[in-house]
């Protein structure tokens, strides 16, 4: 808020020496040639001061000889710099006013006519200011406390035409309340609005008497024409009348006090010069013999009136801003937090800096956090899917500092190969920050001519491959066919209306703002560039295995040399009476999510019930909660995520979700959804549970698992159980037909997981074009995607054999829990709740089947970072 400096300090110092010299010279003249001195001093110099206060008060406060004397002790370092005693601080203003009145009235009978007395007055003021400066700190010994000219400066200088920075106080020592040097523009307003009644009272009092004082000063005959007591009586009457007028106005006019004080100040200034201009003209003519014509005086009076009107307007405008500031933006402080951070910084916890380009936004990052965590925590635009480097939703370009990111794991490497982007690409969810780096949220494309990541190797007799299904399994299969076989025709047929999108993120379509933008994993051009013919919104209705053709619902027929089935799965809906009415949903595709959002808005839905406490159910319930609905999760079993969590972890998770505002009901099965009783409306308003309980409901969503879409395969005569049966080459019972993803049943397993679909599709594609690939099952890794909770579940999370070793560590204070199951010295499963940084080493250890017998004490002691492969930087555990 301080005014900026424009004039260098030495210039001011020189001016001050001149001004003190002038004051002393004045004294000498007053003593030796009183006539000349008095005319000069009282006739010209002093009457000019109010004008200076009015135009550039800061200039005066910098060159005032009293201020120079007052500040000399500080400048030369011999001030005691005491704090002003509180009685003096409280009464300083009164003392200033008192002295001012005393000196002004005494002019009439003493100073105006007595040179030595006037010189004495100047010397007294210089001396007092100096003593004040020796004793008290800053300007509190004179200039900003008892200086008799300060009240006048405060009134006239409240919205200065020219602001000059106070050059005395470097540094500011905060010596005075509402310092006039510090912020001249609001000091007077702050005074008037001060909570201290007396403090505001002094200001009002002074401005109230001021016009009266001026009139009395100029209109009262000087003694001995009247007696001194008579003179004082006149002064008193004039000031009382003036003060009375002020309070009458304050009482009757419904405007702020400040407006009245400003009008009084303006009146005082104009009255003063109304009388003073002619007197100054007289003084001028007696000193230098110039006669000022009356027209000039009139012009000056008029000019001053105009300037004062402008000043009045400015002052009024200023008040509005001041009130706005004073009422709205008093700063809130949190000193303890700052101190805590400083101690942390002092303790040597230097943290890496991450820069997002373009835009150069700089973040301080806790070492060990993933880029994704940092980017998401700062609400920057990024999509995320599996959060383990498999889905490929979050590639970013590392513009600088690649060496300061954690190493690339197997899953991430495979994904990077699939995405085939520039060398500087990392998956944000995998890259952990260890040092300073710069990241662009948009990945860079591979340079032309860069080596392809896969060497073509294929059966040249294959000319045409048809893939049914445009989800991740289908697109991955098509992609891998193209990589290995640069020439064959590829047809990609799918029922959905969208190009491949990040299915794992569709719950965000319910509450986010972005709709489909950002969910697409490849640009539309990708399909053309890879010469893949995409049939969106097209159903495959029949497979003729003998003719090797696929009939489409649109009437066309596609022939194939190899066929890859990737139709995925649908939501399983258990028998529930009334399911299918308006307001009942499943959540499997992007369109489902958008329908739910639209329905909730159309019907002003308040209550949501989600049947199913699995991953999808919880994510959907969270999404509905974020959309503003009260979300209830119904779980058939006795706990949430029963396929991913043990009872303890499930309990922790449940508490968190309940605190978040979700309602969880376990052992609950839905039997019926029905409309409002007696209403003709069809839409669902109530859910009935098996035990008879009824819940209000506007949106009912079933998330009870998946059913593979095998109808087409069954009709074609392929061997199926729950899914299409495949061997380790992902080949079905027809050697020309392969299957991958949610509809493929391998070794009795249907995983229903995105990473599995990717792995299987690559194997299916490889074998389809005549090369060889093997699929040997997946260790299921699942991550719950609800903000604020890091739940990872890997593999077998309960002991299956009496010899299996379980290490389970709880941190109840932080609501964290982690567990590994160790069989034959190898970790076979894990649950991590609140330990995101352990997820990747633990998962890697499980997938690699590492022998951890030597590490047992460390694991039992909680140092799970030890699982990070040798050479991999050990990330610090994050503070929470």
């Amino acid at each position, binding site marked *: *808020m301080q005014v900026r400096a424009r004039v260098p300090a030495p210039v001011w110092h020189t001016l001050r020496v001149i001004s003190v010299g002038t004051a002393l010279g004045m004294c000498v003249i007053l003593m030796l040639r009183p006539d000349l001195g008095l005319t000069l001093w009282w006739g010209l110099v002093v009457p000019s001061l109010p004008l200076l206060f009015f135009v550039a008060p800061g200039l005066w406060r910098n060159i005032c000889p009293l201020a120079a004397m007052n500040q000399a002790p500080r400048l030369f370092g011999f001030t005691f710099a005491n704090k002003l005693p509180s009685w003096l*601080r409280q009464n300083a203003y009164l003392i200033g006013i008192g002295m001012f009145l005393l000196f002004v009235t005494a002019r009439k009978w003493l100073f105006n006519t007595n040179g030595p007395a006037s010189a004495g007055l100047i010397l007294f003021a210089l001396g007092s200011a100096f003593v004040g400066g020796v004793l008290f700190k800053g300007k509190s010994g004179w200039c900003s406390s008892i200086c008799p000219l300060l009240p006048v400066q405060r009134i006239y200088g409240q919205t200065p035409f020219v602001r000059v920075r106070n050059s005395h106080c470097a*540094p*500011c*020592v*905060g010596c005075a*309340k*509402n*310092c006039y040097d*510090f*912020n001249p523009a*609001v000091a007077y307003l*702050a005074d008037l*609005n*001060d*909570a201290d009644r007396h403090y505001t009272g002094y200001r009002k009092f002074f401005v109230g008497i001021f016009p009266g004082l001026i009139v009395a000063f100029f209109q009262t005959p000087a003694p001995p024409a009247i007696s001194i007591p008579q003179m004082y009586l006149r002064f008193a009457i004039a000031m009382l009348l003036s003060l009375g007028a002020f309070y009458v106005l304050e009482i009757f006019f*419904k*405007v*702020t*006090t*400040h407006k009245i004080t400003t009008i009084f100040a303006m009146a005082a200034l104009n009255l003063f010069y109304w009388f003073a201009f002619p007197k100054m003209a007289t003084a001028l003519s007696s000193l230098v013999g110039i006669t000022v014509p009356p027209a000039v005086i009139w012009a000056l009076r008029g000019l001053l009136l105009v300037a004062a009107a402008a000043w009045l307007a400015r002052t009024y405008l200023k008040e509005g*801003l001041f*009130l*706005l*500031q*004073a*009422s*709205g*933006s*008093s*700063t*809130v*402080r*949190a*000193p*303890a*937090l*700052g101190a*805590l*951070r400083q101690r942390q910084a002092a303790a040597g916890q230097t*943290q890496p*800096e991450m820069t997002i380009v373009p835009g150069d*936004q*700089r*973040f*301080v*990052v806790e070492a060990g956090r993933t880029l994704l965590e*940092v980017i998401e*925590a*700062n*609400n920057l635009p990024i999509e995320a899917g599996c959060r383990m480097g498999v889905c490929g939703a979050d590639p970013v370009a590392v513009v600088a500092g690649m060496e300061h990111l954690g190493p690339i794991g197997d899953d991430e490497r495979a994904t990077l190969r699939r995405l085939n982007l520039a060398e500087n690409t990392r998956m944000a969810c995998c890259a952990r920050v260890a040092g300073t780096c710069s990241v662009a949220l948009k990945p860079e494309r591979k340079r032309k001519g860069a080596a392809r990541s896969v060497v073509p190797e294929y059966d040249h007799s294959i000319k045409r491959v048809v893939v049914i299904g445009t989800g991740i399994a289908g697109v991955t299969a098509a992609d891998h066919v193209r990589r290995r076989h640069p020439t064959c025709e590829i047809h990609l047929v799918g029922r959905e209306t969208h190009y491949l999108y990040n299915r794992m993120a569709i719950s965000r379509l319910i509450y986010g703002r972005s709709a489909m933008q950002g969910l697409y994993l490849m640009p539309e051009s990708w399909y053309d560039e890879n010469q893949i013919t995409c049939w969106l919104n097209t159903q495959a209705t029949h497979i003729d295995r003998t003719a090797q053709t696929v009939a489409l619902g649109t009437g066309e027929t596609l022939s194939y040399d190899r066929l890859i089935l990737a139709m995925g799965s649908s939501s399983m809906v258990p028998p529930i009476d009334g399911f299918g009415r308006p307001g009942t949903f499943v959540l499997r595709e992007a369109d489902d999510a958008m329908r739910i959002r639209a329905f909730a808005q159309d019907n002003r839905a308040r209550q949501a019930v989600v049947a199913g406490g699995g991953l999808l159910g919880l994510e959907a319930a969270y999404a509905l909660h974020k959309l503003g609905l009260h979300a209830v999760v119904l779980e058939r079993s006795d706990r949430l995520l029963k396929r991913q969590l043990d009872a303890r972890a499930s309990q922790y998770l449940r508490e*968190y979700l309940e*605190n*978040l*505002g979700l309602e969880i009901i376990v052992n609950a099965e839905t039997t019926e959804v029905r409309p409002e009783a007696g209403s003709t409306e069809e839409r669902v308003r109530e859910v009935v549970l098996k035990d008879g309980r009824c819940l209000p409901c506007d949106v009912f969503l079933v998330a009870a698992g998946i059913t593979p879409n095998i109808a087409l395969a069954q009709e074609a005569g392929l061997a199926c159980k729950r899914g299409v049966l495949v061997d380790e080459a992902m080949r079905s019972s027809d050697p020309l037909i392969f299957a991958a993803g949610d509809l493929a049943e391998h070794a009795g397993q249907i995983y229903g997981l995105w990473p599995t679909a990717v792995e299987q599709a690559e194997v299916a594609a490889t074998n389809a074009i005549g090369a060889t690939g093997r699929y040997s099952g997946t260790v299921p890794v699942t991550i719950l995607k609800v*903000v*604020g909770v890091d739940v990872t579940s890997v593999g077998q999370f309960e002991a299956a054999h009496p010899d299996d070793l379980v290490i389970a560590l709880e941190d109840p204070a932080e*609501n964290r829990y982690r567990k590994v199951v160790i069989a034959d010295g190898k970790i076979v499963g894990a649950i991590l709740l609140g330990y995101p940084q352990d997820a990747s080493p633990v998962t890697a250890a499980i997938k690699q089947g590492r022998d951890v017998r030597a590490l047992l004490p460390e694991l039992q002691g909680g140092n799970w970072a030890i699982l990070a492969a040798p050479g991999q930087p050990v990330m610090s555990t*994050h*503070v929470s």
Partner: protein
Amino acid sequence: MSFGSFFDYPDAEAGDTAEEIVLLPQWSDTEWSRLLPYTTTRRFRAGESVIRGGDVDRSLYFVMSGDVEVLLGAPRGRRTRRLAVVRAGSVIGEQAFVDGQPRSATVRSTTDSELLRLSQDAFETFAARDPALAMDLIFDLARILSLRLRTSQALMARSLG
């Protein structure tokens, strides 16, 4: 009433105006360090915008180092007016954090600065994990906003009185 924001004297022992509103004075390091992990840290260079007026960003900021200035007006590149300078140790953005309205002012860094940001999402997580502390925080913000309301009312009453 305090006019501390007009007279932000650099000296800690500043005159009578040094009374200021302190957020959560009852919190010790223990509580603050529980909140810290939910914040993110951003660095700004002198002249960089921290908050743009009109943005919808429901976050609370803590100025850790440097000075930032609060600018008013100038929706379409017109002249701005400086409302206040906010120094290290201060909290900004509490109004939008509570009411979710677009930012009323622009905040710009006047020196190199470092700010902590507590987003609405992060606060929700904090509230689910540490409901008691989250209630402390939101209650104290309510106290501060109420205090301000009283200030405005008193100011209004006194001005018109």
